[in-house]
């Protein structure tokens, strides 16, 4: 199956002060695939995701979205590109001052010319997808952590982006909710044909959604491949990573 490379990351390097967080990282993302990014805390996974949407400017390297370099493109082109890339923040990053309805309506009102009733339909449909129709008139402060994640997810998918970046979509949730969210991500991806990059520590989540996995270690790309093959690798770091994961999962 020869699929398009929708995102190409080349020789990405980023330091904060003395600390090299990303060190010459290169990999491709194929159209329609679910790519999992593993790595220990502080290895620069969030920095990587933020670089892809240019929230952070890397020191060197290039990030191509369909052959256009995101890091050097003009402001206007960047806005267009950002509209095609959804970003789910770890915290959900819901707009505190707006109700759930307005949180979802906001990008549609700002970015599309849809009439109010169409926007409302869309909001209701999307909330059904994430199974939270009853929360429509709640304020973010009234939601639990898992609900915030699902509303964040709804807000991310409502504009129908082609690529979605997930920063730890299941961290901090109980195992059942986190399985639910993982399945939700998978079914959304099937339904909407999106490409996803998912940063996670959660092995269960990875098992549910991954097509391919990459590992970051000390800012470098350590290994890449299918989850099943990597798990069998006779490598101390990998073994350690997964055994820890399984232990914490079993707790």
């Amino acid at each position, binding site marked *: 199956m020869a699929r398009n490379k929708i995102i190409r990351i080349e020789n990405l390097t980023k330091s904060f002060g003395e600390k090299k967080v990303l060190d010459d990282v290169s990999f491709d993302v194929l159209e329609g695939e679910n790519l999992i990014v593993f790595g220990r805390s502080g290895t620069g996974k969030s920095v990587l995701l933020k670089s892809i949407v240019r*929230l952070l400017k890397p020191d060197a390297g290039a990030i191509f979205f369909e052959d256009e370099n995101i890091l050097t493109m003009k402001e206007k082109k960047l806005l267009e590109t950002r509209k095609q890339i*959804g*970003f789910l923040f770890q915290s959900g990053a*819901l707009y505190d001052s707006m109700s759930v309805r307005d949180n979802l309506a906001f990008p549609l009102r700002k970015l599309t010319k849809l009439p109010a009733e169409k926007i409302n339909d869309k909001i209701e449909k999307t909330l059904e997808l994430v199974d939270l129709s009853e929360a429509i008139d709640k304020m973010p402060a009234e939601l639990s952590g898992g609900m915030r994640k699902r509303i964040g997810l709804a807000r991310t998918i409502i*504009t129908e982006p082609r690529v979605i970046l997930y920063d730890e979509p299941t961290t901090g949730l109980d195992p059942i909710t986190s399985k639910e969210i993982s399945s939700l991500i998978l079914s959304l991806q099937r339904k909407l044909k999106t490409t996803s990059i998912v940063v996670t520590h959660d092995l269960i989540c990875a098992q549910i959604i991954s097509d391919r996995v990459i590992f970051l270690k000390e800012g470098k790309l350590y290994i890449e491949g299918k989850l099943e093959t990597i798990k069998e690798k006779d490598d101390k770091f990998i073994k350690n990573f997964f055994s820890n994961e399984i232990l914490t999962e079993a707790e």
Partner: protein
Amino acid sequence: MKTPQLIYGKRLTGEEKLYNFFAMLGGITVFIVEYFKYFFIPPYEIEETKKHMADFGMKTLPIVSTMGIIIGFVMALQSYFVLEPLGATDFIPGSLGISILREFAPILTALLFAGRVSSGIGAELGSMRVTEQIDAMEVSGINPFKFLVVPRVTASTLILPLLTVYVIFISVIGGYLATFLQEQMNITYYFNSMISYIDMNDILQGMIKTFFFGFMVGIVGSYKGFTTEGGTVGVGLSTTSAVVTSSLLIIFIDMIMVKLGMM
């Protein structure tokens, strides 16, 4: 947009403080330029601007009302004690009117406004920054500067002059209360006498600067909020620092405007 990185939560050397001071001035200048750049680009966010105007006005109204009436009262009383022995109480309304118009109402309203509004903007945008709400807006393809900063700055620029006009009336009434208690001065006499002393220049001098004050309160609050770092601690620091910086700028601008007005 590039914003200088400020280092919080650690003791800074004098050199670093000086560096940060100039970084801040640079950052504020960039904010002013960006404001005018985005102000003219549609959509104009009129609803947001109105909402913030109402919010800033309501937030400040109680405190400026209290302050206005008391300042007017006290100033009239003070002039009475000075002018009465000279038999010059007729001058009270005129001198009172001029000092209220030219200096007291604009500057005191602006300082109280800074205390309420600059800190409010700093806190609100600061928490949006540390909880990644601003990042979320930015990555969804919406310009957060245009949506969050521009309406707030426009609102504070427009509402402060209105508040000042209101405070002028309130303190003139406060002044009348004091003169009435001391002198039983007739109210028509009080107002006529005051108006005969005031000229257009006093009104202009007093009012023009309030637009600058309002603008700076909005800009400084937004700048401090937008550049917040370091979680909730950072939000607290931005809030206080927004008040301090905008109050100092108000006094500084006032000094320059008075100096310019005298030339």
